[in-house]
């Protein structure tokens, strides 16, 4: 395969390194939030900190930094890295892409500042105000333009399945973003809530999931050195997720003031998502056939397969909790927090870690500094996440049943809050382990760039293939 052009290399590294920085910052904010559950007065020294680090302000700052700083910037970097590989064509407009990277970082800084100053739209994952939204839409549209132009001028006639996923996602994201962030300014009441959740769930399903699955399809055959199990399955998976996902929004308003038909219309496609998910997983397991032993030595492969399994678990849990009865218990509880972290951290961040470890040697010309640290990154992330997830799920079930028994107000409500203290502590411990894992990751990447062993000429030519 062709060596990566110099300009393109610079763009991908800008996006990758920025995203790692945002990962650390976003998780620091997340950790502060987790500690506030245990010790509400944490960091409340003086009026300034009390105001700017209050829970309601930094919670959206956490979600914005990890969703748009870490995941989306890493995704854009991944697209700029993989699309040229799959099209055998160097990236179009690398200078524009580089400018988008710099402007994107400015967006995240502006979002953190405005959100902690208290400017918010109150719509989940769309809290930043409209001037920033318009700014980000322009950047996303620019990135999409570069990707589509590269694909249009490709030197490889057939489109590999990852490109289907990428192209779909790049069309969907700007539309979703406009509906959730701009359209919601002009409508009120239930339609606003529905439009907000249309965006809130689809940004997970038609951006984070679909690009992430595209990455899995790219990484798995390369890392396992097996052919992809079935092209046909991958296309069934693509078209069914494209068909069913858009209807997921209403299940967030389950048992709320929406018509019964709309509730059903939210539940049925949520459950039917099992079709694309199991189809993807059948392809993953089929591709891994005979190569499972490689997982013990190959850390990137370990990350991809673990990520795929978390994707499977997420999409069994999700359909279950979208049903009317489970939703009546679980809604608004800690359970949801555990569920929301599973696809974004457990599944797709893991896939990104694999992509970073796979791509860095060809970007820097140096091997990853330490395999041991890669393993530490893996185990700290997964153990920390499992502690975090199981405590939030258990606490959520307890909370939900207590509330249905009438402990929803006043003193009984506070008793429930107090009784969940041990879970809040365990959750903060899990979060700390996850965070330490990412510090190990960032340190390992930093050392690889500076002191990693240089690739030999032979390795250079195969590292991108």
């Amino acid at each position, binding site marked *: *395969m062709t060596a990566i052009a110099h300009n393109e290399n610079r763009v991908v590294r800008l996006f990758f390194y920025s995203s790692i920085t945002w990962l650390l910052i976003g998780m620091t904010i997340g950790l502060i939030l987790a500690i506030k559950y245990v010790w509400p007065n944490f960091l409340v020294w003086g009026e300034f900190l009390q105001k700017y680090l209050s829970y309601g302000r930094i919670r959206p700052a956490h979600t914005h930094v990890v969703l748009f700083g870490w995941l989306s910037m890493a995704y854009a970097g991944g697209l700029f890295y993989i699309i040229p590989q*799959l099209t055998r064509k160097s990236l179009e407009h690398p200078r524009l892409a580089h400018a988008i990277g710099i402007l994107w970082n400015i967006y995240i800084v502006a979002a953190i500042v405005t959100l902690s100053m208290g400017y918010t739209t109150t719509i989940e994952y769309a809290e930043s105000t409209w001037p920033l939204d318009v700014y980000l839409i322009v950047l996303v549209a620019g990135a999409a333009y570069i990707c589509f132009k590269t694909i249009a001028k490709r030197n490889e006639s*057939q489109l*590999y399945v990852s490109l289907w996923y990428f192209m779909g996602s790049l069309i969907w994201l700007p539309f979703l973003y406009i509906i959730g962030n701009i359209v919601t300014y002009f409508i009120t009441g239930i339609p606003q809530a529905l439009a907000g959740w249309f965006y809130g769930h689809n940004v997970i399903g038609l951006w984070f999931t679909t690009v992430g699955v595209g990455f899995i399809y790219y990484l798995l055959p*390369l890392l396992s050195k097996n*052919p992809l199990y079935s092209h*046909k399955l991958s296309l069934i998976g693509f078209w069914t997720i494209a068909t069913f996902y858009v209807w997921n929004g209403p299940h967030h308003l389950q048992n709320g003031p929406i018509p019964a038909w709309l509730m059903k219309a939210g539940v*049925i496609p949520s459950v*039917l998502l099992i079709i694309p998910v199991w189809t993807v997983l059948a392809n993953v397991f089929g591709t891994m056939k005979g190569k499972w032993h490689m997982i013990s030595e190959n850390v990137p492969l370990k990350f991809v397969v673990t990520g795929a399994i978390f994707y499977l678990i997420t999409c069994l849990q999700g359909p279950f909790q979208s049903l*009317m009865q489970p939703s009546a218990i679980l809604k608004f509880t800690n359970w949801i927090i555990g569920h929301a972290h599973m696809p974004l951290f457990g599944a797709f961040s893991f896939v990104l870690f694999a992509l970073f470890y796979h791509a860095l040697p060809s970007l820097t010309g140096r091997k990853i500094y330490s395999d041991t640290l890669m393993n530490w990154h893996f185990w700290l992330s997964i153990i920390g996440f499992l502690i975090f997830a199981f405590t939030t799920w258990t606490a959520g079930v307890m909370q939900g049943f207590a509330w249905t028994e009438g402990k929803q107000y006043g003193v009984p409500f506070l008793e429930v809050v107090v009784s969940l203290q041990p879970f809040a502590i365990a959750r903060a411990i899990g979060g700390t382990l996850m965070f330490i894992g990412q510090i190990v990751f960032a340190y390992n990447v930093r050392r690889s760039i500076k002191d990693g062993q240089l690739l030999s000429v032979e390795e250079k030519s195969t590292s991108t293939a």
Partner: protein
Amino acid sequence: MDEERREKKKTTHEEPIEEVAGIRMANAKVPRFLVITYIVLAAWAIGYSVLAQPVNERTKDTAGNKPVNGETIVQQHCLGCHNLSKERLVGPGLQGVGQRLPGDKLTEVLLNGRGAMPSLPNQGLDNEQIKAVEKYLRTL
């Protein structure tokens, strides 16, 4: 028949492998368990769309066992902090509260709380229940 099937199974992995941009791609058929999954889910979706009924467990629960007897409610919600006698516990004793807070004053304390005492609406009591509590308290 059995042999034939086994042979077929073998060949699904032997189908021609294409290569796209350096990635090899086989073309295995859709596994049978997935086909069954698709059919089961489709049948469930049709059934659910026709038969499912929305739930509203919370109102059912609270509507069913809601006490409207003032004495019962006071026992459940107030005696953690108040004695029925004149003796002080966390808050003042309830005996004679009707004389100490005549007319609207008692209503106001019940509806809005006072000091550390939470208001009754905040404890999940509705208007009917609060009226019953007030009526009972005035008899003490």
